[in-house]
């Protein structure tokens, strides 16, 4: 692992307001993201995964600790310069986006010349490459509203790639993709990582996807980093059982040697059991 691209030291964040809002906060978070690595971020709902993305992209400023990007405190970065380094693929687009695929992808060029009114031909070339990489080039002139969920997701990925970032943050990237595109997406991410040295933070509920793709995993729970390390270290049966509150079995993917997590689903209650009380 080479030099750290992003370093968090003792980072905490509390949302203002009453207790329900505060449970999404973070505290005492210290880890680093090495240049060129793929870091998977996993954890149960409300563990603080979305808050972590917001802190990495300066949508929120930490209430404690500090975040360094390329050794410089995040608060020192102008937003547009930060957007040249870090790109985010959000879970989904707003439902009524009235733009075409190409218009969307070109938005990724904004941070490279925020004062410019129109994109240059160089910007267009980058956008084309990004669309080609994600397979949406034939859809360039289509309105986003006419696309399937998978196509939209790839268009958004193309927009993030058009930022030409060093760090790509993906929030549940495969949520809307069927198996084929999931596979393609993972292949694409691996290729970008290997060929372009792109650093990737993959936030996912899918433990097996994260285990398969990531060099390291970060397990968040209750706003704290429970464990950081190689997938096999983090995906520990006892640890997962305590964090997720359900029984799991971890075995190994024979093809890749990566851990695979299986949920042990509870047996159904015996018929005529405790249900009668609920009905009354």
């Amino acid at each position: 692992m080479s030099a750290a691209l992003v370093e968090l030291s003792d980072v905490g964040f509390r949302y203002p307001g009453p207790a329900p809002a505060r449970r999404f906060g973070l505290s005492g978070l210290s880890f680093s993201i090495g240049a060129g690595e793929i870091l998977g971020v996993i954890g149960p709902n409300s563990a603080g995964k979305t808050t972590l993305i917001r802190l990495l992209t300066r949508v929120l400023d930490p209430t404690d600790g500090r975040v360094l990007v390329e050794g410089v405190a995040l608060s020192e970065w102008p937003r547009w310069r930060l957007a040249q380094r870090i790109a985010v693929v959000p879970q989904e687009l707003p439902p009524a986006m009235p733009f075409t695929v190409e218009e969307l992808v070109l938005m990724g060029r904004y941070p490279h010349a925020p004062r410019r009114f129109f994109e240059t031909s160089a910007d267009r070339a980058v956008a084309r490459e990004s669309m080609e990489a994600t397979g949406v080039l034939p859809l360039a002139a289509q309105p986003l509203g006419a696309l399937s969920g998978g196509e939209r997701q790839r268009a958004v990925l193309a927009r993030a790639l058009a930022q030409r970032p060093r760090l790509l943050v993906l929030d549940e990237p495969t949520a809307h993709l069927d198996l084929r595109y999931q596979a393609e997406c993972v292949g694409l991410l691996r290729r970008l990582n290997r060929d372009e040295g792109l650093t990737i933070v993959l936030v996912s509920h899918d433990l097996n996807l994260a285990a398969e793709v990531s060099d390291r995993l970060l397990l968040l729970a209750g706003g704290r980093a429970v464990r950081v390390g190689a997938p096999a270290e983090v995906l520990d049966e006892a640890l997962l059982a305590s964090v997720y509150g359900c029984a799991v079995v971890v075995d190994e993917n024979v093809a890749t040697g990566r851990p695979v997590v299986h949920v042990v689903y509870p047996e159904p209650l015996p018929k005529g059991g405790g249900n009668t009380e609920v009905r009354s």
Partner: protein
Amino acid sequence: MTAEARLARVLIALGLGLTAVVAAALFVGSAGLTPGAVIEVLAGRATADSTERVVVLSLRLPRIAVAAIAGGALAVAGVGFQALTRNPLAEPSVIGVSSGAAFGVVVAQLTGGGAGLGDTFRLVAFGLAGALVAGITVYLVATTQAGFPVPTLLLSGVIVGVFFSAAITVITSLVDINRLGGIIHWLLGNIGPVAPASLLVFAVLAAIGVLLILLRARELNVLALGEESAVQLGVDAERLKRQIFFGAALLTAAVVAFTGPIGFVGLIVPHVLRMLLGSDNRFLVPAAFVGGAIFLLGADTLARNIVAPAELSVGVITSFCGAPFFVYLLRTRYRGGLP
């Protein structure tokens, strides 16, 4: 074709349309001048202080200028509010900002006199204060975690509009009956020939408002991704929203101060242009300015000719076009299908 060339082409096409409407507006009117007489005046061959010269140069031309600037300003304000709220039905009159500005202007009209330059600024300042108060109120009432849903935005716009209309009624009921007629006609929206100095003020205010929005058109596109994504792309979303809101409110207030509240221009023009040009604000904002000018100038030319020598309020005509258009949009395009 590069984007610059496409924009130029769009603006040339719309410019030709505007030229045609300006020509029509110059040649028709209740004074019944012959086309030849109008051409004589335009060629500078009319005798000084002749009726023809005064009608063309002191009445028709300034009125054309006011109509064109007001139409352009309203359409751009519409684009601004729509991008800001990410809601294509937002429009100065629909979201109550016009009513707020009208309230401010009525207060200014009744508390001070005159029609000099100082008074012009006073009217605009009061109108702007009213527009900002109304806009901020709608913003606070309508905002939810999911942005500005159509029903919430429309309802809070209606509520704020009703409130300020009521406030105007309170004022007018304190006014002598002889002033009332004038104020009621003003409230319907009217375009009249404005003195050159005031016209210049109007043009400068409109230019400021349009530039505030036009220069941020690219960021407005990015804002359509949602605020969080826009910030992650390097946009200072808070500053952007403040600037667009101020620009659109300034445009609304300036138009209301000079013509009274005129509805629906900011809804119809951007919608038609979106169908023709797409949603890229870098095309939409400049095209809306010219398109708005065409629409309102056309409406005003109708208003001053169909019942000549009496006149209709131009706001009546835009509302006759706008209200059915609004219903059509609600019933077809946005039937429960918007954020």
